[in-house]
């Protein structure tokens, strides 16, 4: 029989004495065992091989194993190996975080809502670290020939900024919201494999210290693309990056399998594919795409690591290898990865706009079809990044064509967005403001991308700051703005309090204005020929760089306001226990805080799609919100 937990059961307070908790598997025991195992492995490897590369590789291999064992991630397999019976219901609920209070965020907890919030804090952390690196970059570029950073350190900071931000972007929707809201949106009690869910988060978590170890081992000079042959030419710091990236990819793979399986098998009665909310479709397609393309990147990092540590020659021409092979392996992931990031944003936009225009989503099949189209075409476009690499001229036109083709499904999605806004009763709340910013910025990012998809213009612009500005307009102007839309939209559901609106608007306008000025100036620098990933530039580019740097610092100020808003609102924000936006998707029909099993009592039966705003026969969910989840 099902376990009935009263509203708020998942948010219970800790009853076990804190001292006793310390000795149960948790993040501290994980850290201790991980570090101990890493040190032992490094010592043994060094004694045997006398090689710094082997020593580093051994330590970075041992670290996640020790960490995960120390976290308790292996408890269930060990249980199997010793032939013990299945955990009791009470043990399962305890593992899911029942009555564990805030402690559940620091241990191997299976509840998808806990994992979602853990992911949210991981994204915040990555954005903070990456953002600090961005500030350092802009300090260095505020004048030509600046000595703020040594060129070598500048390269490391640039590369780390890129990696941290890309990692954050990959998980920024599918991690926090894919975990927290998607299972509720489809009417499930949890993910298909709750333990794998926790494992995916802690794998991602364990990759961060490994990535940071690059600073302790000399850094790396390749930028975030980690291009060979530079990557295989003896930088010890690159080994840390290789292992960190491999761990992160493993995490995304595990998470992807879990989300895909959840959406396929755990939809509640009546939640047909045709009624699936756009966010669910988007996260599903995004992780499915990641499942197909990420292994290619994983292979590239394995080969780079073995070239460094075991002296293989995958990317060394003198040994029969090819650096161009690396470029293909990388970009086969690298460009679809843009859509791994973008597609969830499309879905979130599609779910937020109808709420704040109070009208049905226009052209819902266009959005879903557009997202499917983007998913499929995105795996055929990678070589447009290689136009200047010396690739066969005969390949240029086909890849130009496929890259241009992808604008068609993207255009369908934009058509549906604009169609939904058209003549809607616009409710200018913060989530919608961020969505509108996404539309504006992503449009600029998309249009400037055309010049990089066309070989004649790309040859001139390749490797310039124009490219940097372009992908910041898509990833930061587009996806990050959408992340903020999602945070402002779902924060009340996740934490039971609204983010402060006044601070939110200040955050919004500072970020929008500063972002656009900073990166429009960067477009200018790029068009004037300023090279990216170079610590200095010609003197005549100083004014544009000063503008970019000053307004980049402005973005930093905006982010500080956001951080203050988050911390302040967690304690003092306006309580939000009901359906604060009047949304019709399922996650807003359950109580806040969400019960441990999401739906107390019966699961919902779905009879219509979630976009029936303004329709006479649609259920007015606003009125039914407070108790409808109680069954």
């Amino acid at each position, binding site marked *: 029989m099902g376990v009935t937990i009263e509203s708020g059961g998942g948010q219970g307070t800790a009853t076990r004495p804190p001292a006793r908790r310390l000795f149960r598997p948790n993040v501290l025991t994980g850290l201790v065992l991980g570090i101990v195992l890493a040190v032992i492995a490094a010592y043994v490897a060094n004694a045997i091989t006398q090689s710094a590369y082997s020593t580093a590789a051994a330590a970075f291999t041992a670290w996640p194993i020790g960490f995960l064992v120390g976290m308790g991630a292996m408890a269930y397999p060990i249980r199997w190996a010793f032939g*013990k019976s299945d955990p009791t219901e009470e043990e399962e609920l305890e593992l899911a975080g029942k009555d564990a209070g805030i402690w559940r965020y620091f241990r191997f907890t299976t509840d998808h809502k806990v994992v979602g919030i853990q992911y949210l804090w991981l994204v915040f952390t990555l954005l903070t670290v990456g953002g600090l690196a961005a500030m350092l970059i802009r300090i260095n570029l505020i004048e030509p020939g600046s000595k703020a950073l040594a060129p070598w350190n500048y390269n490391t900071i640039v590369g780390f900024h890129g990696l941290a931000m890309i990692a954050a972007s990959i998980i920024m929707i599918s991690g926090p919201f894919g975990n927290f809201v998607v299972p509720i949106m489809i009417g499930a009690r949890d993910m298909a494999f709750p333990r794998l869910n926790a494992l995916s988060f802690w794998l991602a978590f364990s990759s961060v210290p490994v990535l940071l170890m690059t600073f302790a081992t000399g850094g790396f000079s390749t930028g975030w693309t980690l291009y060979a042959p530079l990557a295989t030419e003896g930088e010890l710091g690159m080994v840390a990056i290789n292992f960190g990236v491999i761990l992160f990819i493993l995490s995304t793979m595990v998470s992807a399998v879990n989300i895909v399986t959840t959406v396929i098998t755990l939809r509640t009665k009546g939640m047909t594919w045709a009624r699936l909310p756009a966010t669910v479709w988007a996260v599903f397609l995004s992780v499915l795409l990641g499942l197909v393309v990420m292994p290619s990147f994983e292979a590239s990092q394995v080969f780079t690591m073995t070239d460094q540590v075991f002296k293989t020659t995958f990317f060394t021409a003198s040994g*029969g290898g090819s650096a161009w092979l690396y470029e293909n392996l990388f970009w086969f992931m690298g460009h679809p990865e843009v859509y791994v990031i973008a597609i969830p944003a499309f879905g979130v936009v599609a779910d937020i706009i109808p709420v704040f225009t109070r009208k049905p989503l226009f052209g819902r099949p266009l959005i879903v079809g557009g997202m499917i189209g983007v998913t499929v075409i995105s795996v055929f476009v990678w070589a447009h990044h290689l136009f200047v690499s010396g690739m066969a001229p005969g390949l240029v036109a086909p890849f130009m064509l496929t890259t241009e083709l992808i604008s068609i499904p993207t255009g369908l999605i934009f058509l549906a967005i604009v169609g939904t806004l058209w003549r809607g009763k616009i409710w200018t709340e913060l989530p919608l403001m961020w969505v509108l910013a996404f539309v504006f910025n992503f449009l600029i990012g998309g249009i400037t991308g055309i010049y990089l998809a066309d070989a004649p213009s790309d040859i001139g612009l390749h490797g310039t700051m124009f490219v940097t500005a372009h992908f910041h307009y898509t990833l930061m102007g587009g996806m990050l703005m959408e992340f903020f839309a999602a945070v402002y939209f779902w924060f009340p559901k996740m934490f039971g309090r609204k983010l402060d609106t006044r601070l939110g608007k200040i955050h919004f306008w500072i970020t929008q204005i500063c972002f656009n000025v900073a990166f429009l100036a960067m477009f200018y620098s790029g068009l004037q020929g300023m090279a990216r990933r170079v610590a200095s530039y010609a003197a005549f580019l100083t004014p544009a760089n000063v503008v970019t740097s000053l307004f980049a610092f402005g973005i930093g100020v905006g982010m500080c306001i956001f951080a203050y808003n988050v911390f302040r609102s967690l304690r003092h924000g306006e309580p939000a226990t009901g359906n604060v936006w009047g949304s019709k998707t399922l996650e807003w029909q359950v109580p806040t805080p969400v019960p441990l099993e999401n739906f107390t*009592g019966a699961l919902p039966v779905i009879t219509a799609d979630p976009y029936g705003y303004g329709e006479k026969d649609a259920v007015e969910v606003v009125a039914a919100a407070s108790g409808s989840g109680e069954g």
Partner: protein
Amino acid sequence: MATDFATVPVPEAHHGHGTPAEALQRTRVGVVFFILADLMLVLAFVLCQVYLKALNTDHAFLPARFHLPSALPGLGVVVVGALGALAMVGNLRNQELTRENLRSRALLALVLFVAAGVLQAYVLSTAGFGAGASAYVSSFYVLGWLAVVHLGAAAFGSLLVLGRASRGRLSTARARAGVEFASWWAVWAAVAGLLVWAVASFVA
């Protein structure tokens, strides 16, 4: 969204997510996607060797001083691994898992997977390639160790099933699902081993 919360009884607890049949279906879907992800990784490894062979920069893919190792020991690994998978496959067709037959199959599979892994490691360590790598040697080793990882994972799965079977705790949906997962992975490990062996042995 129009919802009706008043119907559909919910027999499952937090970990159950529905009937045993649904739990089994979930496991099958999950393992298929795990295999899909791993297939993409294996394909990336394999296609890299095919590409480097086709490129053959400065005839350095396999320089003259290198000799190709015999394909027979690798074939032996494939055969032993496949026998291990066959031992596990019986579990997929067996609706009523009994303690005795599952224990014997899991034990046999474990022994065979470990043997295949050890044999593969032996093949790699005695391949006889001299100093100085080439792209072929690089691919040979990486593909070979990839097979060891697959066999290791299959052996681990067999070990878990064996532990469970030894105590006879097989009646729950979770036990059935776990056995299915380990069995499907064992089959995939054998197939991947065959693919890897074929490429490492004949694309040179």
